[in-house]
């Protein structure tokens, strides 16, 4: 990507048009984008709208404008402000889905390895690694204060003596802290096949090449076992 003298990226009009076309061609587009009379029900019911400059009504209006410039303005930080709760789709009188439009745009951002996508997905690299290595999404040893600031002031205490706390759980556990449950190698192989088919590995490669390398090693090991 090119940058101007102020370090702001210069985005060719062609790229913006491509992105718009890619969104328009998405098989979900017709279902998600219908009529809109700016009634504001979607934004009125939108939880993130209370915290960020984010409005599902604007998302839908920009999409309906068919103006690649306007759609481009959402591709950086804007699309990541959505909680994907789909309250907007639940209440829109036209049955539009602004949340669905966001999903389409996010997928484009991820597929194309946009900086905003990389930044947002960075905290998930630990989860992706855990998932590909063990078939677990979250395990006790991932509970660390740096990664869960939203857990409040007790996260420090919660992250200590994990092995002991694990033993105190009054139900059968694996009694380890790096796993929540055991996943059979056959299941892992099936998971990788799904990831291959769905393009998940490709996405990881585009947003985090170094993570991709580590994951590929694990995948090769499991597949050859």
């Amino acid at each position, binding site marked *: 990507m090119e940058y101007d003298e102020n370090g702001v990226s210069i985005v060719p009009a062609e790229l913006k048009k491509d992105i718009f076309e890619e969104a328009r061609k998405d098989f979900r587009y017709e279902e998600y984008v219908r009529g809109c009379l700016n*009634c*504001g*029900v979607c934004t*009125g019911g939108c939880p993130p709208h209370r915290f960020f400059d984010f409005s599902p009504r604007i998302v839908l209006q920009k999409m309906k404008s068919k103006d690649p410039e306007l759609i481009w303005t959402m591709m950086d930080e804007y699309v990541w402000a959505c909680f994907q709760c789909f309250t907007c789709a639940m*209440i829109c*009188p036209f049955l539009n889905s602004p949340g669905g439009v966001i999903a389409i745009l996010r997928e484009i951002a991820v597929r194309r390895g946009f900086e905003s996508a990389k930044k947002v997905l960075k905290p998930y690299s630990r989860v992706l690694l855990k998932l590909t290595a063990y078939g677990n999404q979250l395990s006790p040893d991932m509970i660390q204060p740096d990664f869960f600031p939203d857990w409040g002031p007790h996260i420090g205490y919660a992250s200590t003596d994990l092995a002991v706390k694990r033993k105190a759980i009054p139900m059968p556990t694996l009694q380890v802290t790096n796993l929540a449950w055991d996943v059979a190698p056959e299941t892992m192989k099936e998971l990788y096949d799904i990831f291959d088919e769905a393009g998940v590995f490709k996405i990881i490669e585009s947003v985090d090449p170094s993570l991709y390398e580590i994951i590929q090693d694990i995948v090769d090991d499991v597949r050859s076992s």
Partner: protein
Amino acid sequence: MSENILVIGGGPAGLNAAVMLSELGVNVALVERDSFLGGNPKKFKYKFLFPDMQPADNVIGELIKKTESAGNIKVYYSSEVSDFKENGKKFDAVIKSASGSETKTFDSVIVATGFEHFDPARDAKYSYQLFDDVIDIKDLERMMGENNFVRPSNGKPPKKVAFILCVGSRDRHVGNQYCSRVCCTVSVKQAIEMREHFPDCEAYIFYMDIRTYGFFEDLYWKAMEEHDVQIVKGRIAEITSGPDNTVVCKGEDTLLRGPFEIPFDMVVLASGMEGGPQSPEISNKLGIELDEHGFLKPENVTLSPFKSNKPGVFLAGACTGPKAISDSITEGAAAAMNAYTYAVKNR
């Protein structure tokens, strides 16, 4: 020998059709499902009518009086057409009422079965029936009609009232994509009425579009200019309960203030009009078509909006779609003319 014409439904359209036919010397059988005449305006005690705020009784009361005093209109109260058959160009109908069943032959038929108010409880986001202070357009009309305009929760006069438009209309979620045509004007009328009688009470109207078509626009301007009604663009996303026994309207003011949560003492939902269960029923019984919105379908919406697809069966009033009372009365007369012509031709 006089013609015999059956009129089904004793609301504004059916009453006017019956009165017109009676003046032409026709013997009219007027079948009414309720125990009284006047249809929804009477049932829900509409008090003043837009656009000129004349008492509803001037209109509905007048039509009822004319109907009752006409010697050639037989009114069947609490009754229904239980069986209906074509008989050549004429029709054999069984009229079932408390006093038994009566079979009669009619030269033509006018269907004026009207509409039902949308039940706002069907759209959960408005919390109708959950909070006492959330009422709808017909509830307010009845309160005004009974001179009992107070908050249902505590019996005290409200200080701040919201009117929410398009409830049950223009919304694919509830299955009604159409505009109910009159609710904007009725709500503006109600807001003016409220401001006139209770000047201490603030009025807000939340809208997606205000459709006070034609001369009804006068009311809309008057509401703003003379009655200080706050008109805010934004449909309400949710109604929740608030502090101090208030109901909170949550939405987006798409033109000015952005997201808002405003507490009100009372919320009035402008619930729209539906074909009601009577439309498919009568469509089945008489073998006439129903449209995709649940109303009866005219043969040609522009050329002959008062004709059904079946020769000899005519349509009038809100049974063919949302309509103002004046339109229903006009259609009653138009259907009467058509039913009479058909009857005379096939005598």
